[in-house]
């Protein structure tokens, strides 16, 4: 028990002190700051274009597939950068592993392509 919960005392203290800090900051600004209500202040952007339409627009579900495909290659890039830094040190194994990885990702792209994901119908 002792062993288990000692480490959490810090977390508990951080939570309590953190909440006190945030609450007191909010409360202090409410009590101390002057408030002036005007029409200008209620606009979304005080300078710049006046926004048109509602905030909640519907995005076509088709974008979802593009987003997923983008994500695949995003992740690929994230893995490629550290690999590019170290692959000379690790040797041929690293090279073939990355080739395999890219082939697997590539077959995913081929699959999506053949299924017509890239066509905007």
């Amino acid at each position, binding site marked *: *028990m*002792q*062993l*288990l919960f000692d480490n959490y005392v810090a977390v508990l203290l951080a939570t309590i002190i953190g909440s006190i800090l945030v609450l007191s900051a909010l409360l202090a600004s409410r009590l101390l700051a002057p408030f002036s209500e005007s029409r200008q202040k209620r606009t979304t952007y005080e300078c710049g274009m006046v926004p048109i339409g509602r905030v909640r627009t519907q995005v076509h579900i088709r974008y979802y597939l593009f987003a997923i495909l983008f994500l695949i290659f995003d992740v690929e890039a994230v893995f490629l950068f550290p690999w590019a830094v170290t692959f000379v040190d690790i040797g041929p*194994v690293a090279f073939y592993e990355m080739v395999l990885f890219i082939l*697997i990702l590539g*077959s995913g792209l*081929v*699959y999506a392509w*053949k*299924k017509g994901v890239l066509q905007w119908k």
Partner: protein
Amino acid sequence: MLEDLDRIGPVLILMVSAGGILLVDLALHERDRRWLPFGALAGLAAAAIWTVVLILRGREAVVFSGTYSLDSFSIFFNFLFLGVAGLVVLASADHVRRLRYQGEFWTLLLLATTGMMLLAGARDLILIFVALELTSISQYVLAGFLKDDRSSEAGLKYIILGAIASAVILYGMAFLFGISGTTKLVAPEGQASIFALIAQGESGTRAALFAAMVMLGAGFSFKVALVPFQMWVPDVYEAAATPVAAFLSVGSKAAGFAVLLRIFYEGFGPDSFIGSDWSNLFAAFAVVSMTVGNVMALLQTNIKRMLGYSSIAQAGNIAIGVAAIAASGGGVSLGASGVTFFLATYVFTNLGAFFAVIVISQRLGSDAIAGYAGMGRRAPLLAAALAICLVSLTGIPPTAGFVAKLYIFNAAVQSDLVWLVIVGVLNTAVSAYYYLRIVSHMYVSPAPDEGDIVPSPWLAAALLTTSVGVVAIGLVPFPLIKAAERAASALG
């Protein structure tokens, strides 16, 4: 590292064939898609042959820094899962031919099997979780594969509840990691592992271990459908395609119990200070699962819902074996081999029942139990196959289900859990009512309409295998019992 790759060869073969089918499917014409099930079967057969070669060459070892163990336990379950997947491929070939996405179905089926095989051999919490997700996510998609309203609802229910269960499992694992500083369940002498930590005795870790035990128990109870985590079962079984329901009912149950044995029997240990706690946990699960499952099954008019509740009750029976492991007081435990043996017989029995339901429902266009009237005259062989499986599910000789129940009740008696056996026997009496009601319905009631029901060659092959299996194991159980005992001995 690389020289150990052949030890996970069966898993790799299934992964490659899953990906291969997905890509080949892209290039095939519509009419050539009917060859895809042969591809799936070839992959499964190759994995089975590879496993045989591994046994012959004596390649059992713990590999990949202790995360995967190729031992008699994982080999037993490799064959079990390959058999399940093979039978399900046979049973779903007709169904899949009517689907739009055929390659995807086979791929998901093979990937789920891959995950199950990894689960049975995993000795590290990380690998357990990754394999569990591989299995679960494939199964979520399979459950919602029909894309009609009901199937989508079932898939969504399954994925949301399943994600919660996975989160609970992960939280339990986090507790284990927190107190032990390692994710290994078992490690060689001198290295940190969860088993070694628990073996040290109670040194301020009891509360955390208890929390981890309850969370892991609860999370995996969802996967194997133990009460009170069974809510998804009837809905998913009813709405998913019947071959998929068959796969879920045996595959995820066998995989879940395999992991439970790995974590609790191998990792937590039966004679450690936490042993009696997890024994009691599973005894409680067993009592409520058997009772709730059987009582609810009495009320069903849809045969797939009834089989769903029956699978909950059967999970309760298996949980008796898990409870018996730790209660044996450190002696030779029949509990673990009981669970293994029961799962093997349950695979044949339950798959057989579902396969017969596939054929009959296809013809009748509904899953209502009332439609089974007079099946004994309309389709004698089919009715006989279903009757054998229902009799086996009840636990009446000379079927596999009888031997399995006898074995697992005996294990409980040896472990001084006589009260649990009494509850089990009472429940068997209750279950006899709804299982045998269908049998009498098929043979005694008059048929509402005539016309033969002939299964397709694929389904006939699957039904023949399961029926012969159920009776053969019932008559000559010893080879399988020996294999199950050898498998369980790898854990102790």
